[in-house]
């Protein structure tokens, strides 16, 4: 097939498309001829890491993905779980790392927009978002601007679209210099028997294009190199997409309306590799062919080539297979919402992917093989060497416990992230029971009494030191945060951010983390239902910290039986649930007070996690716990201070202990307050859970034996001050 106006496919062009020589051989063998330029573009898009998961697939297969409540596991736009009463929760997390570094505001907005689309494509109305952000060293000259842009972008999209952003994470570490991470999670609610999928069915069905017009957005570097061939190469085209939350809000309402009217057979959003991926997926999943006519595609720019249209990543677009008899009705709905609506193709019985443009057949490929025959690599990996366990006795303590606490709470790692989440509308919808600032966010389901507990977690420094334990810990912490509000953890989405998988050490991190994640999911009955892999997060040969972000979803049967972390009143006993050895390796204390980022991370005993967590949850549901907080970064005293700061109520502790006890990061622990310490202790003993009374709530200061009293208001001031002060001289985006 030779096509007018298209460049000839040369080895150089193949290389510019990121296809390796053996991958190209595979293409030749598959189609029996030289591909056209547009076909080459399609292969490069379908077979790149992002779409094909070629480096990660073999390892992802090991993850547990089922449970009785799982309706849809990985493989669709988002995962779906059953929460009873005929309702389902649809959720997924996705990264938009690289674009957010190039253009932080737009990169973040389009990340949020993309994940929201994944969720409402399945027929769910988004009810919450979360965001997990990693930035470089605060002292790096670019960091402040990246934070300002990304946070404004996450808010800018979610606030306008109208979904509450209720939780997330934010960290700084020099290893993210040059590679900040933006992971966005969306959670939606649907009727369990009205979930929509991508698989087309029926021959001769109209394929409909919906949403915004197609422009030359996000067409990749390889394309730029060959842009001279196009009709108008007047200026170097940016590869950054611009988000349009307004159009997406209209798209949401229009999609839900036509789904409600039962017009839809199949639906797929146009995400990465836009029209290509969505059309191929619809056909391949339905064992059908697809015949597209690009002359019908609504375009924003003139003279767009087939290549450009097939690879454009313009946002806020969808592809649908409609019931033919409902075409008029659907068109009217879309027009009412002011959105483009065009029939751009039909399903065929041939299992071929045909693309026509200007009278030419530009593409004629076997549709299933485009996806199924993508290369899969079992890349070589080396296991990350184990690090030495640090003996707490060998750690020097340069300051008193009280001073260390005040210092820690004002570090970039542990300071309040209020500056971030106050830029997010977290109350819209009227269902946010627990706002950001607690363990998991709690969002009421419709009029209740059910509610969802939502969290996003990972501790990258643990993953770096020991990928397997770090992977386990990320899942365990998500499980723990849900438990700490009284939720029953149901399922997770994972967003795996790593460096270059072609390096055996990085691949070793990846494999180790996945093993840990899988093991934790299995032990905690907390399957993976969706996820996303982001590789090649590397600058100057240095990868990011391995960052497998875990987005967790749990269920509360009755949200009035939940716990928050704030102390409720004076005179209540403070109990520590779980064992404390004083693990300082990889702790924030060791790094930010001791100046040593060293050692093995705390090990995670999953059976103990489960036992301790199950007890805490039942204490909450039975009303015996008045405040609950899980212990994570910073350890016991940091968690206790957070409970005090959230309430303005102090505490008197009578335990005489050392720094390792107060700041160690041993896992599977919680702080609980109660009016009836004896009853709780008895229950813990019966369940075989270690419990220890630390002191009592009350007053306005935190008192520890042998330490100066710590004023809660002062602590809070320092805790709240760091981030706003750091961001104060951020240059406001013009």
């Amino acid at each position, binding site marked *: 097939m030779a096509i007018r106006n298209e460049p000839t496919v040369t080895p150089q062009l193949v290389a510019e498309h990121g296809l390796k020589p053996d991958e190209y051989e595979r293409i030749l063998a598959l189609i029996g001829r030289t591909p056209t330029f547009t076909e080459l573009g399609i292969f490069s898009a379908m077979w790149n890491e992002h779409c094909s998961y070629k480096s990660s697939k073999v390892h992802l297969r090991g993850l547990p993905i089922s449970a009785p409540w799982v309706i849809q596991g990985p493989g669709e736009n988002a995962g779906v779980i059953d929460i009873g009463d005929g309702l389902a929760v649809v959720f997924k997390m996705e990264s938009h790392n690289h674009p957010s570094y190039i253009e932080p505001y737009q990169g973040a907005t389009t990340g949020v927009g993309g994940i929201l689309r994944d969720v409402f494509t399945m027929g769910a109305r988004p009810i919450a978002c979360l965001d997990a952000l990693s930035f470089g060293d605060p002292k790096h000259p670019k960091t402040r601007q990246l934070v300002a842009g990304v946070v404004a972008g996450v808010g800018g999209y979610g606030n306008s679209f109208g979904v509450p952003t209720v939780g997330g994470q934010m960290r700084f570490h020099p290893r993210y210099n040059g590679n900040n991470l933006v992971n966005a999670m969306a959670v939606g609610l649907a009727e369990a028997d009205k979930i929509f999928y991508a698989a087309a069915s029926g021959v001769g069905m109209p394929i409909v294009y919906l949403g915004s017009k197609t422009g030359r957005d996000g067409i990749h570097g390889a394309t730029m190199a060959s842009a001279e061939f196009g009709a108008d190469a007047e200026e170097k085209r940016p590869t950054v997409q611009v988000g349009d939350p307004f159009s997406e*809000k209209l798209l949401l309402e229009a999609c839900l309306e036509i789904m409600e009217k039962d017009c839809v057979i199949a639906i797929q959003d146009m995400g990465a590799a836009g029209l290509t991926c969505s059309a191929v997926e619809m056909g391949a999943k339905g064992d059908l062919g697809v015949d597209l006519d690009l002359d019908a595609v609504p375009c924003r720019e003139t003279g767009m080539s087939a290549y450009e249209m097939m690879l454009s990543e313009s946002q806020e677009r969808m592809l649908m297979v409609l019931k033919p008899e409902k075409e008029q009705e659907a068109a009217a709905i879309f027009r009412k919402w002011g959105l483009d609506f065009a029939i751009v193709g039909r399903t065929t019985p041939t299992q071929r992917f045909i693309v026509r443009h200007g009278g030419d057949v530009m593409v004629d490929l076997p549709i299933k093989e485009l996806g199924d025959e993508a290369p899969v690599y079992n890349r070589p990996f080396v296991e990350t060497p184990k690090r030495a366990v640090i003996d707490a006795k060998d750690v020097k303590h340069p300051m008193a416990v009280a001073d260390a606490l005040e210092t820690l709470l004002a570090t970039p790692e542990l300071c309040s992230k209020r500056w971030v989440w106050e830029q997010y509308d977290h109350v819209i919808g*009227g269902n946010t029971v627990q706002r950001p600032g607690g363990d998991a966010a709690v969002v009421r389901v419709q009029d*209740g009494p059910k509610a969802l507990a939502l969290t996003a977690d990972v501790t990258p420094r643990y993953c770096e030191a020991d990928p397997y334990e770090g992977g386990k810990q990320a899942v365990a912490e998500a499980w723990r945060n849900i438990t700490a509000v009284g939720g029953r953890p149901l399922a997770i989405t994972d967003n795996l951010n790593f460096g270059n998988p072609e390096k055996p050490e990085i691949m070793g991190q990846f494999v180790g983390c996945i093993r840990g994640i899988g093991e934790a999911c299995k032990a905690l009955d907390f399957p993976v239902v969706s996820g996303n892999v982001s590789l090649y997060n590397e600058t100057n040969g240095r990868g990011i910290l391995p960052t497998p972000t875990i987005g967790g979803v749990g269920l509360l049967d009755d949200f009035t039986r939940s716990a928050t972390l704030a102390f409720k009143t004076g005179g209540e006993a403070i109990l520590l649930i779980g064992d404390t050895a004083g693990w300082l390796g990889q702790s924030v204390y060791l790094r930010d007070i001791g100046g040593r980022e060293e050692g093995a991370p705390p090990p995670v005993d999953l059976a103990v996690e489960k036992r301790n967590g199950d007890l805490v949850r039942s204490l909450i549901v039975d009303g015996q716990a008045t405040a609950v907080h899980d212990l994570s970064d910073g350890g016991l005293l940091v968690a206790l201070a957070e409970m005090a700061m959230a309430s303005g109520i102090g505490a008197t502790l009578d335990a005489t202990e050392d720094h390792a006890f107060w700041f160690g990061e041993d896992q599977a622990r919680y702080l609980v307050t109660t009016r009836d310490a004896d009853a709780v202790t008895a229950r813990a003993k019966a369940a075989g859970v270690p419990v220890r009374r630390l002191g009592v709530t009350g007053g306005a200061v935190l008192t520890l034996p042998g330490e100066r009293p710590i004023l809660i208001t002062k602590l809070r001031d320092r805790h709240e001050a760091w981030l706003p002060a750091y961001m104060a001289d951020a240059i406001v985006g013009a």
Partner: protein
Amino acid sequence: MKAAILVFPGINRERDMARTLKLVSGRDPAMVWHAETALPAGTDLVVIPGGFSYGDYLRCGAIAARAPVMDAVRAHAAKGGLVLGVCNGFQILCESGLLPGLLMRNAGLKFICRDVYLRVERADTPFTAGYKKNQVIRVPVAHGEGNYIADGETIAKLEGEGRVLYRYASPDGMIDPDWNHNGAMNAIAGIVSERGNVLGMMPHPENHVDAAIGPTDGRGLFAGLNDHLAKAA
């Protein structure tokens, strides 16, 4: 209370508002599409909810203010009918000329979502009848452009005629720049029209009505309206 909620493309708190009106009055409000040219017969309260009408792309509320349905709202207001604009609704009312002044970008140039405290300046209006004078209520805000400004003369007039109904305040009711999160002139959070029948306010009383979720201080506004309309009927 026969309420009608206007729905412009990009509005996103219409469901929150509808739920609250139902909760307080027991009656579902009518949802009125922006392209309509008339309000449902018998409408006694028009509500313009929050959101980002038309993406707030030109100026907040500017495009919506010129939509067909706004002529019907003007006519309703001219007859003395009640109009409540919240957040984007307030911006739309200013842009449409139904209220004076404008909402500029927050002084800190960032979107802010948090609970704020409002001092109720007078209780003898339909929009404040559910409160006591000088009562302090806690309600959330969620906006990037809520910084009320007007020229000196307009401000003097608003103040002189007692048309500032809600003001940002400290928890104990003091007017204090530290508690004026968006920098609004005279800490203005909500004003009424000359006739007193059109209220615009930035905070979201509709999000604080349900004890199960949190504070219920927003309820008074809707309960007051409901009682007022019941008496008038």
